[in-house]
């Protein structure tokens, strides 16, 4: 049962703060998303530029870039995920603590981008791990990364604690483990994780 807005505003005027556990929980988690220090290629430089003085990412609670996956709850895949790097990316994602989000930053992380026709480039990281926000651009501007942060924060705000709208980490059925691909003789096997990657029907 949500508190109805008008009552909330009235009480707010008299200095009484009314909230639900869900709002408090979501507010707590979205205001301090600690990204993992995980730069792959050119988009990593734009990510660093976003944390620098001019486009200050610290204003969104992401001041600290944690090197170790154990203490990070957001993985910004900034750059090209090659087939040699894919098992490491998926293993790092597995090793992150459970409420974890993924931002696929840049064309290469979403779909292989300009290097798509190559033999060593993974065509998009959402073959192996679920991606929450995609940022197109090559590289996307620092403001675009901040706007993606705000999109992710809105998305966290709308999450419910129970019922079917609840996020992956509160849902027993949601898979906690994502299969790490092995190095095959010609390509990674399996080439994609069927659990998270569904090839859409050909639209044309």
């Amino acid at each position, binding site marked *: 049962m949500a508190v109805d807005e008008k009552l909330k505003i009235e009480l707010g005027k008299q200095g009484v703060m009314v909230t639900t556990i869900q709002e408090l929980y979501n507010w707590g988690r979205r205001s301090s998303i600690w990204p993992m220090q995980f730069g792959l290629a050119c988009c990593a430089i734009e990510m660093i530029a976003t944390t620098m003085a001019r486009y200050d990412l610290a204003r969104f609670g992401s001041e600290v870039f944690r090197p170790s996956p154990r203490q990070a709850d957001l993985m910004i895949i900034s750059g090209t995920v*090659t087939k040699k790097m894919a098992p490491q990316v998926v293993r790092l994602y597995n090793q992150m603590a459970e409420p974890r989000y993924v931002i696929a930053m840049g064309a290469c992380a979403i779909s292989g981008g300009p290097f798509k026709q190559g033999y060593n480039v993974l065509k998009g990281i959402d073959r192996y791990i679920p991606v929450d926000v995609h940022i197109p651009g090559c590289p996307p501007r620092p403001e675009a990364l901040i706007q993606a942060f705000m999109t992710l924060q809105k998305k966290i705000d709308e999450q419910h604690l129970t019922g079917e709208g609840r996020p992956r980490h509160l849902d027993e059925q949601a898979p906690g483990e994502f299969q790490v691909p092995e190095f095959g003789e010609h390509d990674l096997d399996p080439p994609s994780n069927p659990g998270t990657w569904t090839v859409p029907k050909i639209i044309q």
Partner: protein
Amino acid sequence: MSSFGIKNEKLAGWNRPPVFESDGEGELLEVAMGPHHPSTHGVFRMDVVLDGERVIKLKPVFGYLHRNHEQLGQTQSYLANMPYTDRLDYFCSLTNNWAYALAVEKLVGQEVPERAEYLRVILAELTRVQNHASTIGFLLQEMGASGTPLMYAFREREKILDLFESLTGSRMMCNYMRFGGCRVDASPAWIEATRKVVAGLPAFVDEFERFLMTNEILMARCQGIGVLRPDLAVNSGISGPMLRASGVNYDIRKVDHYGIYDRFKFRVPLGDHGDIYDRYMVRMLEMRESISILNQALKDLPAGPVMDPKAKIRNFRPKAGESYGRIEAPKGELGFYLISDGSPNPYRYRVRPPSFINLTVLEDMCLGSNVADVVLIFGSVDIVLGEVDR
């Protein structure tokens, strides 16, 4: 040659007591400073064998960002390769463009109008300044000064990126040069804005120098660490600030006389110990030289066309032949080797990456030093993974 006037030699690190000989008690620990590591500027892996803290063996492992740049180069047309060169060394996209344009111009004997040559020099030197500032910022970041020098360096870099964006349209991926000139002419307002930024650069370098040069921690941690002998450097094909820090006078702007660098008066800074501190000093002094080149180039920038009218952009079919064009990129000698067989896409498209070859001596420099110094030595080599793995 005195080592840049730092008088108190006793502080200089290289007269330290002999390295502690391991008495063979402890076992060796094999650890991977792997693809995901805060100090490796991206996805680079070093398999290190440690005896306590001392490095016994170090094997670099590449390929985590191998984006098959050369194979794509051979399937695309000459023009379509130009935006891909921005993604090679993604700190200095304009010098990559220039190296590729130079190689193709050598392939077909294409001249470049005066104003385009001047614009190329101005943009290349701006790229060199922002690359060296960022490199020093990252080097200090790895030394522990987390943030402050990097913030100062990036504040300066943002100003230069604004210039790139207002001229070419993109901050980092300029895709600006064509075979036979540049894509867009620089408006007088842009020239004025460049003058203003260049006027502010000496103050920034002075501030950086006052900030860092005589800092005891910097001297204690950098002097005498990662020493590279000049003969090993030349034999290993090292190029750029690392080579000059070992005292070898080899700057391609002076050797190859490409572009119009002969018209500008600038000196080539050399180090004499070849350690991290000399590499840091060579980069600081190169920034000063670049600023003097910028001032000279901005002073007599001629008017005139920016693009040679006869130059073909689309449907460009050079006759059969090969060409190797190289320039002095901020990280070293960046070369493009093109073999053409008359078809619109090159038969063989090879990039000579300075960072990749500068890593040949990483193990020689790191043997016997502490793990913490390996991070610094690796930072002083200044590599970018897009260029290392291509």
